């Protein structure tokens, strides 16, 4: 969930009133945003506000205050005007394999102030982070139109041939030089988006001046200053729809600072497939039944008129004709995909907490999963036998399940994690034992003996499942004391078999390297191994930093379901 920081004073000015913190929190709550934190910096109060991840139109103070004012019925949703194109952007086929889409727009006669300049930069940042997925899907370049001359070209060039002075750098350099330089800066994470491509995307003007090297950096030449009057906005992307959403969002938010308020100028985009203009600032109209829409919320006391009013407060200007409500979905509400999104807005405007409770009138009988029911009974049995339940992690290191237990081959059956952040998350455990041994190791000061158990899932590769990985429910019992306590663990096995009403089990000595020589055995159920028990090998103990003898029993519980 994105968080934006807004100046409290600016926000309250825009809302036309001031609030106590509690009042503001309540208003946020009803609207579905959350005042996360209040910080005071240089005597200015800043609100940190959590915004739902699909509401890009709320990521700046302009959009947030506008939406809240509409919600409070203070203002109406503005109508946006798109003026005819003067500028043109030509998309060359060469970008197809690296970053295929580009859209653009112009904001004319713009009046920058220090405040809206900061907001302008911050919104681009937020869009980069969220819908842009850290610029990988979408990135934005904004330029002083008066320093460049169209038509503009978006094409891909060999890195060496791209030479320009990057934003806030003092010299001209080629792309590889830039990359070397930026590796030390905040731009580092973005470099990998295009670095391995043979050609890098670049936007130039008719004089060959480089506007930007998306998604990395803009040129210094066309940079925006507080004196900029006319803004050229280009958005490059791997996803066309997202590029349009971003462009619509910036125009919808910042066209309010143009001398002709809420108007922007389109740019003609020329592609091999044909030409089109952006931004669309399109309004989609859905006609829905008021009654049907209320059905899902369980709201029964609204007239179609009231439904239309509620929707209008949610930035969806609506009118009604009988039961038919025409809902206008504008360029700030790209999150509306389906009637259900409109239905939610009715419920929000009505107030979730005003909806009356109902209990579904279904008669059902609760049932448990047999394996879970059995596990719980076994857990009770073990606790009654004086053993203490521990809860350890499913993920562990490769060594934990293999070399530390003197069974190097065990990794072959394990499910491996591709992107672990630490060694602790390399594989899913194939036995419960390592977790219990780590517990013993970090509880050295406890009175002896330690009698521990865990009943939980392990995962092993298996052709039986679509994923090739299968969970098994295991029981692991450990005794650790001054003596090995093997006979205690053996006793637990006997007790469990009585509890599970299983007489047909046997124990066969094994040469499992995990166990002390001559003190390890397989547990068999009608000649099929269902687990093992034994005194742990001293090297295993040493690997887990344990100085006392331990005996263990680990069984697969699935056989008893």
């Amino acid at each position: 969930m994105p968080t934006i920081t807004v100046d409290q004073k600016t926000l309250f000015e825009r809302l036309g009133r001031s609030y106590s913190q509690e009042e503001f929190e309540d208003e946020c709550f009803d609207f579905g945003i959350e005042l996360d934190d209040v910080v005071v910096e240089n005597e200015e109060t800043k609100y940190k506000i959590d915004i739902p991840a699909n509401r890009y139109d709320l990521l700046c103070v302009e959009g947030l205050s506008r939406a809240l004012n509409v919600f409070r019925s203070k203002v109406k949703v503005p109508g946006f005007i798109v003026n005819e194109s003067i500028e043109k952007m030509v998309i060359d086929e060469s970008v197809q394999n690296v970053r295929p889409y580009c859209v653009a727009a112009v904001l004319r006669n713009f009046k920058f102030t220090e405040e809206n300049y900061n907001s302008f930069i911050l919104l681009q940042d937020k869009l980069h982070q969220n819908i842009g997925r850290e610029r990988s899907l979408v990135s934005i370049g904004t330029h002083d139109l008066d320093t460049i001359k169209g038509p503009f070209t978006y094409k891909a060039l060999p890195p060496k041939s791209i030479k320009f002075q990057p934003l806030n750098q003092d010299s001209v350099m080629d792309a590889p030089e830039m990359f070397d330089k930026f590796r030390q800066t905040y731009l580092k994470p973005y470099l990998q988006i295009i670095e391995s491509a043979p050609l890098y995307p670049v936007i130039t003007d008719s004089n060959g001046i480089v506007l930007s090297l998306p998604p990395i950096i803009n040129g210094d030449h066309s940079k925006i200053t507080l004196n900029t009057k006319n803004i050229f906005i280009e958005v490059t992307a791997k996803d066309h729809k997202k590029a349009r959403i971003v462009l619509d969002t910036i125009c919808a938010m910042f066209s309010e600072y143009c001398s002709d308020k809420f108007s922007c100028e389109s740019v003609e985009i020329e592609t091999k497939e044909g030409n089109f203009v952006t931004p669309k600032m399109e309004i989609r109209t859905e006609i829905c039944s008021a009654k049907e829409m209320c059905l899902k919320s369980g709201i029964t006391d609204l007239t179609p008129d009231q439904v239309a009013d509620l929707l209008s407060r949610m930035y969806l200007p609506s009118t009604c004709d009988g039961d038919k409500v025409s809902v206008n979905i504008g360029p700030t509400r790209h999150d509306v995909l389906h009637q259900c999104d409109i239905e939610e807005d009715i419920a929000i405007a009505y107030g979730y907490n005003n909806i009356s409770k109902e209990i579904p009138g279904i008669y059902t009988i609760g049932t448990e999963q047999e394996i879970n029911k059995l596990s719980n009974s076994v857990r009770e049995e073990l606790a009654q036998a004086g053993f203490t339940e521990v809860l350890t992690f499913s993920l562990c290191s490769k060594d934990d399940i293999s070399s530390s237990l003197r069974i190097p081959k065990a990794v072959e059956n394990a499910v491996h994690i591709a992107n672990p952040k630490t060694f602790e998350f390399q594989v899913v455990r194939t036995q419960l034992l390592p977790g219990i041994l780590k517990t013993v190791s970090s509880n050295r000061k406890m009175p002896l003996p330690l009698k521990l158990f865990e009943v939980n899932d392990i995962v092993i590769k298996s052709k039986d499942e679509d994923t090739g990985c299968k969970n098994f429910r295991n029981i692991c019992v450990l005794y650790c004391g001054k003596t090995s306590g093997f006979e205690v663990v053996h006793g637990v096995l006997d007790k469990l078999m009585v509890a599970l009403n299983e007489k047909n089990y046997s124990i066969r000595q094994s040469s499992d390297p995990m166990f002390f020589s001559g003190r390890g055995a397989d547990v068999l159920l009608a000649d099929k191994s269902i687990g093992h028990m034994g005194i742990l090998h001293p090297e295993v103990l040493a690997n887990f930093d344990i100085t006392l003898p331990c005996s263990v029993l680990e069984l697969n519980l699935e056989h008893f379901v």
Partner: protein
Amino acid sequence: MNPDELDNFLSLRSYINGFSYSYADLALFNKIKEGFPDNCRNKRNISRWFGHIKVLSTNNKPKLSTCLISSKSDDTDMSLDQLILNKLADCKEIDSLHFASERNLDHQKVVGAIKSLVALPGNYVEVNQQQTSNWDLTDEGKLFMCNGSYEYILYNSIPKDGILQKELMKIANAKIGFSKAMTLGWIKIDKSHENGPTVFRKAENVSDVVKDLLTAIQDKKSVSDKQIQDLKKRKLISPIISKFYLVSKGQGFKTTIEKPEADLTFEMLQDNSWKEKTFKEYNFSAKGSPIASGYLHPLMKVKSEFRRIFLDMGFSEMPTSRFVENGFWNFDALFQPQQHPARDAHDTFFISDPEMTCSTQFPEDYLTRVKETHEEGGYGSTGYNYDWKISEAQKNILRTHTTAVSAKMLYLLAQEKEFKPAKMFSVDRVFRNETLDATHLAEFHQIEGVVADKNLTLGHLIGVLSAFFKKLGLEKLKFKPAYNPYTEPSMEIFSYHPGLKKWVEIGNSGMFRPEMLLPMGIPKDVNVIAWGLSLERPTMIKYGINNIRELIGPKVNLNMIYENPICRLHKM
């Protein structure tokens, strides 16, 4: 016994009597140790025994039971309290001071024994504390006792024909002695003597009255008050106050001491002796003995409680024993677009081996419908308008939520010939490749509830949530609009926490999107409401644990598991 006989006797024995060191050994040892007879010294067995007893006698007391020479009852071997009782049996009253001095015992020890008799239940003795003030000689008084009084010394220093006063006054304490002797009329002075003032004896014979008085006091004989006052004035005696006890028979007097029993035993029940025994008072302010026991883990106790709540409400458990999922069931089936940040390596654990689910494992027509809905919409949706790739759907991951299983269960529900309403739940592990901190781990437990029926509404969701959380003891709820990729409407659930005095988020909920349900084949009029919460958060609140690592994992202190209350969620 002659040495030969003794040597022979000892050749088969270690001790004179029986198998342990007794008074018999000690008595013989004492008899022969002074001048160990030469005819004994060369007797091997006597020498061995002698050396052995020599060592033992230095720090061991012989055993009484086998003592030969203790046939005459010996006070010193009896406990002091027993002695007092024995004595009391023969007389009416015992004076502790008297008793002590008679037996040459420390009075404090006698007092201790008396107090322990008083403490015995059964009223053995009555005790009356007394106080006497006695006179004790001061250091000066003691000096008088040895040397005589100053006046007596002075008198005796005067020769028959007198002595010059100047000379006489050279004796120690002559000044006091002179004035006293003058008062008593023992001496006279001739101031006009030719050699200067000279002192002469006046009385012929004197007796040292003061010394006699002091002797009388020391012997505790009676002395008149006036005399006492005089001695006190001269600082020869000082008062001493001594406390002592007069002990008499109590109602339950008997000479056998029965130590009160600490516990009721099998034997007492067998021989009915419990009827006569007295019992020690139990110390109710002490802790009981620690109990050796097994314990269930608190998180698992809370888990059981949640399962019980769902079962009470008629929910059926979903088969969630499936940590590894593929992108299809975890995300795509839920209408979560493939570029969604949750599908990023920063958030999700991907599996490198086995890396993929084979594409033939997915229901083919359903897969096509999912793809189309993502790409172009349908079912009333605009869709996400992007290129949906099966390769993303095939990727194996550690499931990020149990909703992956819910999706599969709903798909199966949709395949039934006739729709049947369903209430389902699960409580199981999920995995996130997140940054770890005090409240976040890479794996945690998700609690999930799902209800599918025709014409369910948001009001039903609120109703079910209210019923569910009421069972947890949370009655004050409110709902905040929220965004989830696969539910619309979505609501975050807040509960008022009276301890923290604020609203706390306790879960997330919503109605599954039509873009998720309709491609499965769920009828159009069926709505599915669902909610989820973590198991760890309520457990941490319940058991007052601030760091999640103190709750789960190998670093957990076992004491945390040993010492926690049973789980009654509604008593939060």
